[in-house]
């Protein structure tokens, strides 16, 4: 059994559940309360949980993110919402130098059970400063875990295990997904460890996550019509990467393309390619390929933005290039 729900509603239900289930949980960030959340994710929560637990913050990304880390050290289970990944650069020092290092550097004395959520990605014509995808950088930081829900199922069910995790967990929600609806099964296994095969196939493994997953699935349909049976894998967990699932898919298909909305260079895509070449080199029948954002600031004009981002057609072309 399942029901139809939007990614936004799924996320909101997850938040509501978490807030109801544990008095230590609270949500803080810019405009999460009275405004109702920039993306309306937290709409209605202020009314139910009050301004202490649905806490509007000043524009002070560094301090309120750090305060979330401190509150976690102090026994709470904060959910910090950084409005978008773009502004998280201002908070990065706290995420790296406090959240990520804290347990190891203190010789195991303190854990930091904070969850930090942020919207990421482009595609809504909001131009260069508001269209970044830095989750790849975060995926490179030891001491944290990084999630990228791409489906309503994950939007609904990744938050609880993230909060239960004793270490810092970052959740990247692709801004273009909030309006997307999907079927949410009544019974779900909450899991923040594994990648997931979304579409089994045998000719090429398309490894994608977040907003790009849906482009990969669309590309797979097109390819199927052209006789190429693509397997599509949702990374889901960007750190630690589930190498086993990825390599199994690569070994089975013997060809792989990675899709990542981050800029091409020094991206999560490059990391996955590096791992494949380390772990599955002899399984490959063709060079790996990646479809990433072009290495430019994302322009405002729609056709230019589209040209800058990964698109199903680019994925199709990359795959077909492997069979040429």
């Amino acid at each position, binding site marked *: 059994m399942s029901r139809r729900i939007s990614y936004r509603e799924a996320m909101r239900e997850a938040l509501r559940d978490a807030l109801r289930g544990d008095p230590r949980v609270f949500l803080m960030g810019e*405009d999460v309360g009275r405004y109702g959340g920039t993306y309306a994710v937290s709409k209605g929560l202020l009314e139910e949980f009050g301004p202490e637990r649905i806490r509007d913050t*000043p*524009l002070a990304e*560094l301090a309120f993110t750090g305060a979330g880390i401190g509150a976690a050290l102090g026994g709470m289970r904060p959910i910090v919402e950084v409005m978008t990944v773009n502004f998280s650069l201002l908070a990065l020092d706290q995420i790296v130098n406090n959240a990520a290092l804290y347990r190891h550097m203190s010789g195991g004395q303190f854990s930091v059970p904070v969850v930090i959520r942020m919207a990421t990605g482009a595609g809504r014509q909001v131009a*260069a*400063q508001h269209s970044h995808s830095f989750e790849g950088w975060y995926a490179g930081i030891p001491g944290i875990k990084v999630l990228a829900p791409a489906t309503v199922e994950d939007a609904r069910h990744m938050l609880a295990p993230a909060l239960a995790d004793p270490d810092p967990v970052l959740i990247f929600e692709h801004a273009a997904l909030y309006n997307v609806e999907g079927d949410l099964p009544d019974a779900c296994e909450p899991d923040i460890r594994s990648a997931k095969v979304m579409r089994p196939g045998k000719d090429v493994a398309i490894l994608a996550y977040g907003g790009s997953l849906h482009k990969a699935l669309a590309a797979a349909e097109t390819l199927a019509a052209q006789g190429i049976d693509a397997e599509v894998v949702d990374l889901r967990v960007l750190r630690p990467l589930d190498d086993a699932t990825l390599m199994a898919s690569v070994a089975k298909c013997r060809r792989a393309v990675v899709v990542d909305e981050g800029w091409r260079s020094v991206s999560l895509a490059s990391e996955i390619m590096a791992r494949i070449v380390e772990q599955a080199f002899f399984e490959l029948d063709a060079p790996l390929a990646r479809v990433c954002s072009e290495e430019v600031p994302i322009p*405002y004009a*729609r*056709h*230019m933005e589209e040209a800058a981002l990964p698109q199903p057609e680019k994925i199709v072309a990359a795959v077909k290039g492997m069979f040429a």
Partner: protein
Amino acid sequence: MSAVEHPAPPPPAGPVPYDKAFAHRLLADMLRIRRLEEKAAELYGETKIRGFLHLYIGEEAVGVGALHALTSADNLVATYREHAHALLRGMDMGALMAELYGTREGCARGRGGSMHLFDRATRLFGGNAIVGGGLPLAVGLALADQMQGTQRVTACFFGDGAVAEGAFHESMNLAALWRLPVLFCCENNLYAMGTAIERHESQVDLRGKAASYGMPAVAADGMDVVAVHEAAKEAVAHVRERGGPMFVEFRTYRFRAHSMYDAELYRQKAEVEEWKTRGPIHTFTARLKAQGKLTEDEFLALDAAADAEVERAVAFAEAGTWEAAEDLSTDLYTPPGAVP
């Protein structure tokens, strides 16, 4: 009325101390901005304009009063709510509208959109969409002027919300410490998106911040173009003569939503309505008429001129062309030979 969180100040009143020509110029500019943005909102509804669109409606007195205190040699650094500032620097309205459309004829070739208006010719250094992100740039521009002996003021606009950012603090300290010719113009419209100033600032009189850096500060009624202009003139003169920075807080109000996506759950309709009665255009109009400096016909003529300019701008934008997708990487780096 007193149930509203932010009661409006008394309506601007008293004689307007300017000659007719200048008074008409101020009024005309407020009208130009208003009509431009009303049109932009309409075009947004038609999906001609996309992405973020932050309207300045209600705050026109601030931009107009303040920018008329600057000369064309001065620098301007603005936020994402900067249609007014771009226009008042002298940007062609067509180039502005074309940028909102995203066409090649836009002031940033359609790459920036509403939040990133740039204009080298009028020394407009953006359009910055990171709250507080323009302040360090302004400090640096002023530093360059100080080091080069250029007599120039760098005016930097930002909202009340930006005051909470570390960037504000660091920039204020640097400017005061090095005595740089920066005019910090805070457009305090009482809200940072949906967060009222009382919920983002522990101390809502923002002049105290300036004092803590030893920087002179003044506040002015941002609904009154005369008050704004007088305060800005004095502040600009101070910066120009002393070389050091100054902080000006303009208390104003945004009549429309924060951006096009805002359900305005965070403020009362009554509050907005009360502030609208202090609208900078009609109160100024009324004062000028009362003083015999404006007739209804003159008003209608100014308004019609604004409308006509907007129409021309829309026509220009409609006739625009698209940047070629092959040019995506153009100007990622400076082409050889281009003077930076």
